[in-house]
């Protein structure tokens, strides 16, 4: 009896953790920094954490699909830089709206190319995208000769800095992206295909899902969301710098997705968890820099959070008595 009861307790803890664990950590981090630093606990700062979390949160949607389908994309940081410099350099020729749209389209095409390499040439995703990480970054340098592109176009800048009814435009954009992502994942057959492919690609193939097509679309979506993030980030900075834009971005995005409860190796995941995790990472960075902790410590902290997040998922699954 005791045995069953203690097991039930474990399962309950694990299940509740799945729903509210990340929220709990977020509140904990906000509480700790708020008590330590008066500059942290201002409305202005909370809004800015919200605003900056959109960089990770938007790019994370594509990555969440990718990890759910059982793959990885570590080229996103370099892709963000490359499409940022390429798209913003089009502004003088095709105007702000055209440049923004072409940035997103180019990013989607790059994602599509990744997908083709991975599915048709059957090269493992993590290593294809590792190669692409360096290729995209090199192309960004070569295209600009390592000179940042300054952005003065009103439309482009509005996407990162504008406000509607006093709400920052990136936040609205993020909510739209999440609505789209949610509908795609939960209300469309395609979302179920992603989860099926991630859970068991062979079974999916046998039950008639075109696995290659699903994976290609997933990588295209990764590109699509990176394209949007690229516009938001570069608009926020007012320039697109080939060397600095998106440096370490893949790392933050993967951390957010994993911390959000999506299991490495594929299967189901959570967009809500990802959103909260993006806030956690941004709050952590924001809090540490307000307390003037060395930026090097911030890197160490994010790295530890990633390992911690993966280990935590494992422990949760062990508690539930499931195998991956």
């Amino acid at each position, binding site marked *: 009896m005791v045995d069953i009861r203690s097991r039930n307790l474990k399962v309950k803890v694990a299940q509740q953790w799945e729903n509210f664990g990340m929220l709990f950590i977020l509140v904990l981090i906000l509480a700790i920094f708020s008590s330590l630093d008066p500059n942290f606990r201002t409305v202005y700062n909370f809004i800015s954490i919200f605003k900056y979390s959109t960089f990770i949160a938007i790019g994370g949607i594509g990555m969440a699909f990718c990890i759910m389908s059982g793959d990885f994309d570590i080229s996103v940081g370099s892709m963000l830089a490359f499409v940022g410099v390429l798209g913003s350099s089009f502004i003088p020729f095709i105007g702000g709206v055209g440049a923004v749209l072409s940035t997103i389209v180019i990013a989607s095409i790059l994602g599509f190319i990744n997908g083709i390499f991975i599915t048709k040439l*059957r090269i493992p995703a*993590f*290593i294809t995208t*590792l190669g692409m990480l360096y290729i995209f970054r090199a192309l960004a340098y070569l295209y600009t000769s*390592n000179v940042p592109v300054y952005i003065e176009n009103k439309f482009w800048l509005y996407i990162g800095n504008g406000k509607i009814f006093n709400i920052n435009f990136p936040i609205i954009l993020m909510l739209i992206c999440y609505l789209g992502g949610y509908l795609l994942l939960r209300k469309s057959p395609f979302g179920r295909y992603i989860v099926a492919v991630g859970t068991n690609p062979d079974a999916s193939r046998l039950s008639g899902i075109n696995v290659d097509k699903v994976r290609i679309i997933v990588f295209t979506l990764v590109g699509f969301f990176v394209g949007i993030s690229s516009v938001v980030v570069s608009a926020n900075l007012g320039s697109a710098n080939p060397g600095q834009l998106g440096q370490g971005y893949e790392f933050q995005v993967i951390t957010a997705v994993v911390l959000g409860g999506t299991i490495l190796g594929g299967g189901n995941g959570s967009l809500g968890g990802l959103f909260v995790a993006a806030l956690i990472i941004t709050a952590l960075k924001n809090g540490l820099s307000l307390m003037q902790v060395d930026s090097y410590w911030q890197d160490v902290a994010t790295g530890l959070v990633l390992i911690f997040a993966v280990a935590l998922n494992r422990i949760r699954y062990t508690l539930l008595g499931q195998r991956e």
Partner: protein
Amino acid sequence: MIKFLKLYERFGIFIFIILGSIFLAIASPNFLQTNTILNIIAQGTYGAIVGFGMTFAITSGGFDLSVAAVMGLTSVFLSLLIPVLGIPLAIIISLLVASSVGLVNGLIITKLNVNPLITTLAMMTIIRGVSLLVAGGRQIVISEKMFSIIGTGFLAGIPIPIIIMVVLFIFMFFTMYHSPFGRHVSAVGSNESAARISGLNVDLIKIMVFVLVAFTAGVAGVIRTSQTLIGIPTMSPGFELVAITVTILGGTSLAGGRGNIWGTLFAAIFISMIYYGLNLLNVQIFFQMLSVGTVLIIALFIDGARNRYLESVRAKGIKV
């Protein structure tokens, strides 16, 4: 066809080397001189040395992205320890520090059961951060001129880095092909559960592989630091790509189980030839990144095509 593939797996890299040599010999009159060739090989030593470790990691089915960060960490420790402890002790301790990073990698991967890619990606960031913290965010000049002998000295007319590489090559070659450990690594890489069931201590083998990779990264860090006489916390960014490219181009299969130390050695020299060629063309440094990335994708394509073919042959019931 199978015979050809087997030959290719062993000697494929030589085709690249020969084609590259012909091209460079035509493009540059200086290429066919002992000095130039020694120089190209010497430039390839880091790639080869770290590639040896990476070959073990990929053979065991793992992967290490933290090697460049470990080189930086070694460099920082050397520059801080040499004035205090003298050169030999500083080198030994720096190599121990490097190896301990591998130990941590291995422990996280085996005991916490975290995917190697994610672990070493996180460790890359962590170790870079630690190196910058230890160094205080700056580069540290080493005033002990004697230390430069490791990276720039000659022994019987041959650059010392090449000698170190050859010694390590012999060691790695025997470990890979003529020791129980080498066979265990291959066994773990080709079928982990089978290796476990047949009584191998898989966790221990994996941990030792990651220690070995970090150790080779440490050695590369020592040579590189000795050449510049500066402790650089951000040393060789992107070097993990070179080490992985060299390993796969050399014929080690990404699927695990089959390592090729010879191939790694010559692939490193081939990459060094590409760099030499790019220098001749006098192009921007970013072309190096682009070329290595492209070579990696090509090497992966060849590896993938080979595995697909072997799979289809096996499916027909022919023993390979």
